[in-house]
């Protein structure tokens, strides 16, 4: 096992021991405020096998994960092309930028009431809210990526007589891809944040719903289970995206070094 992982594992182990000591053994924290490890495991068993807030943990996870991935993909599929267009075409930039300047200061979560009003408590409202949040980082970073391409590289492509579609596919996109991936990572984070928030406000399923119901039931163990589940899923999806990035950017020395560290 690499040294980094060993140290990380040790840190978590110490935290768990401290948690156990301060709750179960010494009772420094009241069980009504923060659950003990045992209460958390009980809650985990509860939601895993008997179900809670309308479904089992697997169903909640599946639902949240599905919405995050869908919303993220829709945001990326619209955001990256728009960023490329804005970076490449002055007219497009001039047309679209003012809209962005108006929309950007609105926190994505502020769209939730409107989304629910339009589309109800179902999936489409969640995807719309995720789109509002995840779209912006994809656009901005892709745009910045295009604008930072070194001019000689573009001139070299022109000098070689590269036709437009091939230019986009083989020059514009790969040249901006380090920044595009930065945008994707931010978009993914934004997707999780907004999904959980949207589910907190109103949902039939999902980890946010678990958190919301557990709060109303005064059930700290279940709240912690929900939080840990979100953390693990967020970490796993970010990790998966990082793997993809390392494969796509294997040509990039900086990225390769960062991936190794």
């Amino acid at each position, binding site marked *: 096992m690499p040294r980094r992982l060993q140290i990380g594992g040790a840190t978590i182990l110490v935290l768990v021991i401290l948690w156990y000591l301060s709750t179960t053994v010494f009772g420094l924290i009241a069980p009504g405020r923060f659950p003990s490890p045992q209460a958390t495991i009980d809650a985990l068993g509860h939601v895993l096998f008997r179900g809670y807030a309308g479904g089992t943990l697997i169903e909640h996870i599946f639902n949240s994960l599905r919405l995050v991935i869908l919303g993220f993909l829709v945001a990326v599929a619209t955001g990256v092309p728009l960023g490329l267009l804005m970076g490449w075409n002055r007219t497009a930039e001039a047309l679209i930028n003012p809209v962005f300047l108006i929309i950007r200061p609105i926190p994505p979560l502020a769209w939730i009431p409107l989304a629910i009003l339009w589309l109800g408590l179902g999936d489409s409202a969640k995807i719309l809210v995720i789109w509002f949040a995840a779209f912006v980082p994809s656009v901005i970073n892709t745009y910045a990526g295009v604008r930072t391409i*070194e001019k*000689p590289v573009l*001139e*070299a492509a022109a000098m070689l*007589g590269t036709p437009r579609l091939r230019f986009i596919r083989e020059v514009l996109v*790969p*040249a901006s*891809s380090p920044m595009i991936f930065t945008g994707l990572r931010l978009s993914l984070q934004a997707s999780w944040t907004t999904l959980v928030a949207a589910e907190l406000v109103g949902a039939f399923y999902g980890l946010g719903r678990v958190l919301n119901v557990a709060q109303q039931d005064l059930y700290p163990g279940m709240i912690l289970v929900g939080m840990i589940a979100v953390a693990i899923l967020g970490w796993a999806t970010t990790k998966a995206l990082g793997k993809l990035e390392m494969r796509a950017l294997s040509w*990039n*020395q900086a990225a390769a070094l960062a991936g190794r560290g």
Partner: protein
Amino acid sequence: MGVIRFDNVGRVFGSKAKPFVALKDINLEVSNKEFVAIVGPSGCGKTTCLRLVAGFDFPSSGRVLVDETEIRRPRPERAVVFQQFALFPWKTVYANIELGLRNQNVARAEREDRIRQILELMNLEPYRDHFPHQLSGGMQQRVAIARAYVLDPEVLLMDEPFGALDAQTRVVMQEELVRLARRNPRTVLFITHAVEEAVYLADRVAIMTRAPGRIKEVLDVRSIREAEKWDSYEKIEDVMDLESFVHLRTHIWRSLREEKAAAAA
């Protein structure tokens, strides 16, 4: 064919209120398969001259012609080698060289053939599947030269191609370029601020004045090189030791120093 002609070319940058005259009354003809180097103090507009021929920039007055046709856009017939190499870092050496051929719809078998030849000529075969960042600067510039040469361009435009290389690598590259240029002559416009490099490589050397850049004089190196049989020497230092070489170099140095002095005055 590949005849470059600057016809009273001027280039003005900046706004109407604050114009900066980069080039003024440039007249120069580079004949077919001739190697012309432009030297001049930094900021004299020599790179602008090259960009006009490449089609990256356009004259404010006058005309730049290749084979009596005015230049409207970059074309593979006018291949460029950039100072900072400008390779595609996400493509392998092979794919970098291949792109221009693919753009010209050269069949795969012929592409492989031509790339193999150029890799061999440039001593790049062991690196065909490497990415640019895995190569030294000299190797990268070799790839960039191969990428331009493989297109069999009428005109080769080189913008201080060895400026970013260390002194030793630079000498090796100069020798190789001479070898390449004698073996497969092209019309070459070569921009440099290194006087020795210009004298060693070029058939003629054009000396530019400081901004607004004009062509001050054009020296015929070729006749001297042929009379003194420079090409019979394999190493650059042997050529640089010849009296005829020293004489030319000193002449250009003096000419450039006058420019510096004028700039300081």
